[in-house]
């Protein structure tokens, strides 16, 4: 399945802002995070198509996955 993966803040360092990539069916959000060399416990928020998602969720063809470290402000 083809997904758009978006990274934010320091997760972009030596990686990318946004990329389209193919993953095998059944790949979880956590699998994708690990494949990028990001430790799951460094991840603050993940969203699929602008909705929060869990690490065990499986994205579907054409989904946009956004991965953020722990961030805050206000």
């Amino acid at each position, binding site marked *: 399945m083809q997904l758009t993966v978006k990274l934010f803040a320091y997760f972009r360092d030596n990686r990318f802002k946004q990329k389209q990539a193919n993953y095998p069916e059944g790949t979880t959000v956590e699998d994708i995070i690990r494949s990028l060399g990001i430790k799951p416990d*460094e991840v603050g928020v993940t969203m699929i198509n602008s909705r929060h998602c869990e690490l065990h969720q499986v994205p579907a063809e054409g989904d946009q996955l956004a991965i953020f470290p722990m961030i805050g402000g206000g």
Partner: protein
Amino acid sequence: MADKIFRVNMSDLSTKVEAVPEGWMGLGGRGLTSTIVAAEVIPTCHPLGKNNKLIIAPGLLSGTSAANSGRLSCGAKSPLTGTIKEANAGGTSAQMLAKLGVKALIIEGKPTNESKWYSLQVNAEGVTIKEETEVIGRGNFAVVETLNKRLGEKFGVITIGPAGEMKMLGANISIKDPDNHMRSCGRGGLGAVMGSKKIKYIAVEPNDQKVAIADPEAFKVASRTFAKALIDNPISKALGQYGTNVLVNIINESGGLPTRNFTSGQFEGHEAISGETMYDTIVARGGKPKHNCHPGCVINCSQVYADAKGGYKTSGFEYESIWALGADCCVDNLDHIAEADNIMDDLGIDSIETAVAFGVAMEAGVLKFGDGAEVCRMLREEVAKGTPLGRIIGNGAGSVGRAYGVTRVPVVKNQAIPAYDPRAIKGIGITYATSTQGADHTMGYTIATNILGVGGKVDPLSKEGQVELSRNLQIATAAIDSTGMCLFIAFAALDDATCLPALIDLLNARFGIHLVANDVTNLGMTILKTERAFNLAAGFTNKDDRLPEFFSEEPIAPHNVVWDISNETIDSFWNF
């Protein structure tokens, strides 16, 4: 040395130093300003008349070595909202006032002769009132430059710019920071209250006094634990690198970034105004990504944004200001936004209220969406000079809406709604609606839990759990705002089990008392109820705790949601 109340009467230009009433002993910051306003200000008074009072108070821990304890609270009846108001900021004055033993500075009355301006100078003995002429009409940066020469760079300065002199309802009170730039008690027009009292600035004498610590050893231990909790928190790290503007991309991604005067939840130009772009720009131009707004801050979320030649462009460049000029006004150019931010720092006007006012003016056709250069021109030529149009904008988003017949005016109790759309992030809608001070994200920052996964998770689009979330955060915030602590300690306090106990230990060691967590919660509840009682006595009802009609009628992309939490549910906020 015991803390004192320093009282200034501008009607007869007299000053006195009073003992602290017993009921105020355990209070500081917002808890104290709101208690004094509730006790001494007639709720129905005109906010710019002689019966309003301006209260300035450092927090309970200000002046100590505790990390992040340098916030200064200003309180009064707000001329923008008509409610009680507290706004706090960093800068150097909170620590200095606390060391001078100033529990609170109360400024009351107003001169009958309105042709003269005054300054206040505060030292350990009390307050001196002097007539001021040189810096009248000048911007904040010129005030600081002049006073640095006249009094010395170490003086603390609390000042109003031209906006406050003109009593614009968006005027703020600005506080000199360690680098001679401005930190703003931004919201609710408190600068107009100071202007109505004919006070241009308050100078605070530098001093080497130390605040009394009842148990220095316990204080030292708690202080270390507390600072470590802040430093170790991963959110502090991101704040230090990207500033609060790290939020542009995540709020945009969530669909809650109000765009084009609140007609969409995502902004096409988000990347150009994001914290990531801002960081890269600052580094490339030789600015400072990290900067502390007050001595003792270990988070350093402020920064110095440089211009293309590496010179100073602005600092304390916050997410909400960047959102408002960026997404809400569709300006996708950080340099224009930075220029406008710096002009607003100099004019002493709230960068949320004013920028949202520009968004409404753009909808009215006064200027075009996206025209950052025109925003800067209008700030310089209209607002700064007090032209009729400048005053309409300077009086805030509600004022622009009324003047031009716009119905999509994002305000609650006449105060502009900041950077999070309540249709797509429903918890913050409860905060906007029920806050005792008009729409203000900092009153109960549900974004933490709705979006950022801090302090648990509550689905931003669900109607469930939002009142409880907002209530718990509003109670905790009222307590934190009383300590002199920066609200960003909350990120550590919500998720690090060592943080809040260390904060309570700090309070106990400072005053030789024995607070437990419940006492802190009770303090927060008492403050909210005190503020609410003032508003009710001023004529507000639960019907004022509502969002503007358009939020219920206009779905917002990408989630195509409306504000759909019932009035009964909103009103249940006060069931505590």
